[in-house]
């Protein structure tokens, strides 16, 4: 158990590698109740939140969800979050480390336009893996045909839950929001399924890294724009044309004229991992970037990393050097994700 964003959380149960592999072959259950859940209400909470994020929310169909970011005036990322359209309100899930700041930011900036209702008495669990659907369907048959990135209210083993088909592993899976009082019973019911094992922070990190997914505070932060972070896919044509989100002119300029640096996948050549803050140099030893997340990928069977490199060095296959313990290690730019996403296609 380690302290994480003010909570005591398990790094592992059986072992990071075992849990990681189980997530890609069967299903694992993460307790992610540390994350911040909230509802945004009002006459038009979608239009209101669009003033703070570049995601398309006003035209997000009811029951569907989007990955987006809170931005500052320089186009830097304050946090990444999931926004789900419920018609009369939006359901938000934000990172634990940022939740107080995020809620203050949203509540403060949208005062008079929309109302934020925090949901501190709800737990959140993530069931992830190719067996997640059949495991959850054994307790909630209604989940089986849910599209990826959608939400449904349903009873899971008789417990009323809000279930989204989404996750942070690259696999099919569900995130289940449940009242605190029923969380333990729900977790136990899910863990009772023969294909489900518990998993901790360690495998959560190795899974999302292999899947090329960003970790706020490491791969994205207030100094990175969505253009630099290779997250422009989250900004629709309408939002780009309207250019009505914070930092829009800076971001759109980077899209038009190139950003000074870009987030890329990095594959070290040997077996040694290269971790966050490792300097990246070119063949002459000139620093051209930095690793922001790095470790060992159990599914890949070797080290994997993500980081930022300056323009001109971003093409997959570009040779890089990583300064690990004072020595230059060969590496190359790799396409993300390292492991193919296997989201449910219906």
């Amino acid at each position, binding site marked *: 158990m380690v302290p994480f964003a003010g909570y005591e959380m398990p*790094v*592992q149960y059986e*072992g*990071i*590698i*075992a849990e990681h592999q189980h997530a890609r072959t069967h299903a694992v259950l993460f307790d992610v109740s540390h994350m911040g859940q909230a509802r945004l209400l009002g006459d038009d909470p979608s239009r209101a939140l669009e003033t703070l994020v570049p995601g398309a929310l006003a035209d997000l169909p009811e029951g569907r969800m989007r990955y987006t970011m809170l931005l500052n005036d320089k186009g830097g990322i304050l946090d990444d979050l999931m926004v789900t359209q419920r018609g009369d309100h939006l359901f938000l899930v934000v990172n634990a480390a940022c939740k107080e700041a995020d809620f203050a930011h949203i509540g403060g900036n949208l005062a008079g336009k929309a109302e934020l209702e925090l949901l501190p008495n709800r737990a959140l669990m993530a069931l992830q893996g190719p067996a997640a659907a059949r495991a959850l369907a054994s307790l909630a048959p209604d989940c089986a045909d849910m599209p990826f990135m959608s939400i449904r209210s349903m009873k899971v083993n008789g417990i009323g839950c809000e279930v989204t088909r989404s996750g942070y592993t690259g696999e099919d899976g569900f995130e289940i929001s449940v009242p605190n009082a029923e969380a333990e019973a729900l977790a136990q019911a899910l863990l009772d399924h023969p294909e489900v094992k518990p998993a901790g922070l*360690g495998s959560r*990190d*190795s899974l999302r890294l292999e899947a090329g997914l960003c970790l706020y505070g490491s791969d994205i932060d207030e100094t990175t724009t969505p253009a630099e972070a290779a997250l422009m896919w989250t900004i629709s044509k309408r939002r780009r044309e309207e250019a009505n989100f914070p930092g829009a002119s800076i971001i759109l300029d980077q899209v038009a004229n190139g950003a000074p640096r870009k987030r890329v996948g990095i594959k070290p050549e040997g*077996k*040694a*991992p290269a*971790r966050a803050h490792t300097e990246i140099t070119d063949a002459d030893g000139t620093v051209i970037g930095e690793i922001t997340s790095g*470790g*060992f990928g*159990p599914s890949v069977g070797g*080290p994997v990393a993500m980081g930022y490199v300056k323009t001109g060095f971003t093409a997959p296959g570009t040779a890089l050097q990583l300064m690990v*313990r004072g020595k230059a290690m060969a590496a190359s730019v790799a396409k993300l994700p390292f492991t193919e996403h296997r989201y449910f296609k219906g």
Partner: protein
Amino acid sequence: MATVKYTKEHEWVSIEGDTGTVGITDHAQEQLGDLVFIELPEVGKELGQGDEAAVVESVKAASEVYAPVSGEVTEVNEALNDNPALVNSEAETGGWMFKIKIADPSQLDALMDEASYRELLKEID
């Protein structure tokens, strides 16, 4: 019959004549979790007692392994290059990391015997 001594940093050294075989203890491998890479010292390297001798990489982080005594590295366990997990499964036997020619046997006096090391483990667990 080899004598085994232990350090506070959870290394063990098994002494036979003037050769010490060094590894990390079972307690250490359990704390580290799954090991994915071991950076072993070069054969011929001169180490001082307490110098960084090797690096073990787990999924999450790198940790140093220190030389329990001064001396020259005479051999490394090549098996760990392809199978770092051997340190997890056989930390105190097949997962040995390197052998060292002990320069100053009196340095061994400062290390713990098995009973003292077990006492240390009781205190920290």
